[in-house]
């Protein structure tokens, strides 16, 4: 096959893999926002924390899969604690934004204190190392695994939201929380659960990206900012918006690095500005 064409294809898959990771983070943010109206600024700190926890688990046990289970579970637990102890006690969007930002600062400071500031390599499991040949293009297995993982989570979330009783309650609470509460459902418990699921997804994304980018304290800013832009562009609380914009951004960033490497980050913000100029609430956002 022509080397340029194969380069395009492999960059494309790169972009989709990155987009999938963005989607994992953004959908976690979106689930929490759609349900509770809280934009969790500490989300990217959770995402980075999971990468570090996974690094620690792999360091102790040598097992990546164990890290993939433990790290997201830990961030989910932390998220639930944060919701219960802090977020529930403040009122107003402004306070919520500033509070979660404060928590994110503390988490990042703690990470720097414990693990230092240099970037730590995370070994991926042997099964996922090496290349695979798809339609004449050799491609790293691990990134395909990331795409697969994100798709599995997407299907799992869809099933949970649209095929279970719990999902029904969650969707009802999105449209009218007081009514659901009045029907005798413990809405606080549901909120706690949703917050846990959101931070769990952030953790999963953190573990998934760790072997690709290595683990370092700038991870939250670098990837997290992209995820926030995805949420703003796709529309707050919209999962399908997050999905489409994630893929577009993933492709933009991978082809952007290829062609205009210096201005790759500008492309995303330009796209966001373009979308918001015509649709102030994002591509799929509903007017507040």
């Amino acid at each position, binding site marked *: 096959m022509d080397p340029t064409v194969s380069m395009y294809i492999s960059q494309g898959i790169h972009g989709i893999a990155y987009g999938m990771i963005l989607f994992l983070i953004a959908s976690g943010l979106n689930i929490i926002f759609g349900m509770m109206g809280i934009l969790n600024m500490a989300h990217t700190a959770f995402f980075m924390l999971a990468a570090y926890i996974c690094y620690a688990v792999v360091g102790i046990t040598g097992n990546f899969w164990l890290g993939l289970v433990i790290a997201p579970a830990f961030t989910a637990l932390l998220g639930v604690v944060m919701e219960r102890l802090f977020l529930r006690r403040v009122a107003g969007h402004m306070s919520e934004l500033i509070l979660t930002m404060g928590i994110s600062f503390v988490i990042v400071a703690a990470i720097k204190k414990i693990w230092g500031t240099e970037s730590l390599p995370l070994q991926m499991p042997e099964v996922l190392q090496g290349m695979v040949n798809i339609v004449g293009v050799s491609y790293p297995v691990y990134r395909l695994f990331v795409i697969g993982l994100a798709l599995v989570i997407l299907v799992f979330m869809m099933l949970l939201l649209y095929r279970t009783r719990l999902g029904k309650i969650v969707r009802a609470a999105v449209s009218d929380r007081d009514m659901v509460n009045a029907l005798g459902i413990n809405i606080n418990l549901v909120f706690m659960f949703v917050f846990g699921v959101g931070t769990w997804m952030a953790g999963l994304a953190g573990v998934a990206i760790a072997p690709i980018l290595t683990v370092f304290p700038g991870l939250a*800013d670098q990837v997290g900012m992209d995820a926030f832009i995805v949420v*703003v562009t796709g529309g707050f609380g919209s999962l399908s918006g997050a999905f489409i914009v994630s893929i577009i951004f993933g492709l933009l960033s991978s082809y952007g690095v290829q062609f205009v490497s210096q*201005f790759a980050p500008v492309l995303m913000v330009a796209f966001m500005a373009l979308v918001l100029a015509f649709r102030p609430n994002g591509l799929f956002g509903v007017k507040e």
Partner: protein
Amino acid sequence: MMKNKVNIVIWVIGLVFLAVFPKVFGIYYTNIMVTLAIFSVFALSVNMLLGYTGLLSFGQAMFFGFGGYGTALALTHIEGIGVLPAIGIGVLASVVLALILSPLVVRVSGTAFAMLHLAFGQLMYVLALKLYNVTGGEDGIANFPVPGLFTESLKSSPEHFYYLAMVILGISAWLMWFITKTPFGQIQVGIRDNDKRIDYLGYKVPQSKAVIYVLSALFAGVAGSIYGMFHNLVSADGSLGIGMSFSPIISVMIGGAGSFFGPILGVAIFQLVDELILRYTESTELVMGVILIVVVMFMPKGFVGLFGILRDKISRRGAPKAEKEKVS
């Protein structure tokens, strides 16, 4: 009448205090005073948006940084430019940036407004790092000349710099105070509390938001410009970083959003706490984070709110007495 006279006396004492400050307290405290003044104006500009119009911006540092970069570039590249035109160029840079962004950002509010600014702010930060031909990349622009109004250079005479900075910052603060007292300022408060009603009353909500947005950028630009000259260094981390966007928000929160003098108090407290804690730990992030959490959790209206609660308690206790005094 009486109250007016007391006010005038307080103002005169305050001005005299500021005028003799460098002579009495020496260079170290003079520099601290300049820092406090710069961050006060910066925090006041944030408070115009956050406290009066209810717009939380996570990217105010970009206007601060544009002011600094504009002034530094002007002083580096334009031969024989005076200090005031240089400041003017810096301020103009941030005003132009605000004018470009305003049609986009006034259409959103709340969370989207905050996030948009986070994104734009980060973009400016990344651009400042990447465009090293213009901005000097990570090193920033340093050692540019700082001419004085009457002297050759302000670098060697911090006292002159103090007076120049204080006059400009003082005028900025007074202008902001004036703006909040005008009918236009009252409309902003109305937008914060109930923008639909303001809309029905016939005022143009997006347009007045845009005006206050540009004004806020202007004063942030003034603060950034003076800050750049004060340190003789404008860098991406020092002037455009995300910490620069959050430090005025923290000050406003500590002092009390929505009151005019609260942010100034907040700046003083924040700088003091920062200075004290940094003697024991290296991590500014930790300090900022803990302060943010504590303030939001335990005193959502800041110190000014705290004073208000205390005053209410005291005056309620002494209420009958006060009435008697009025009668006699």
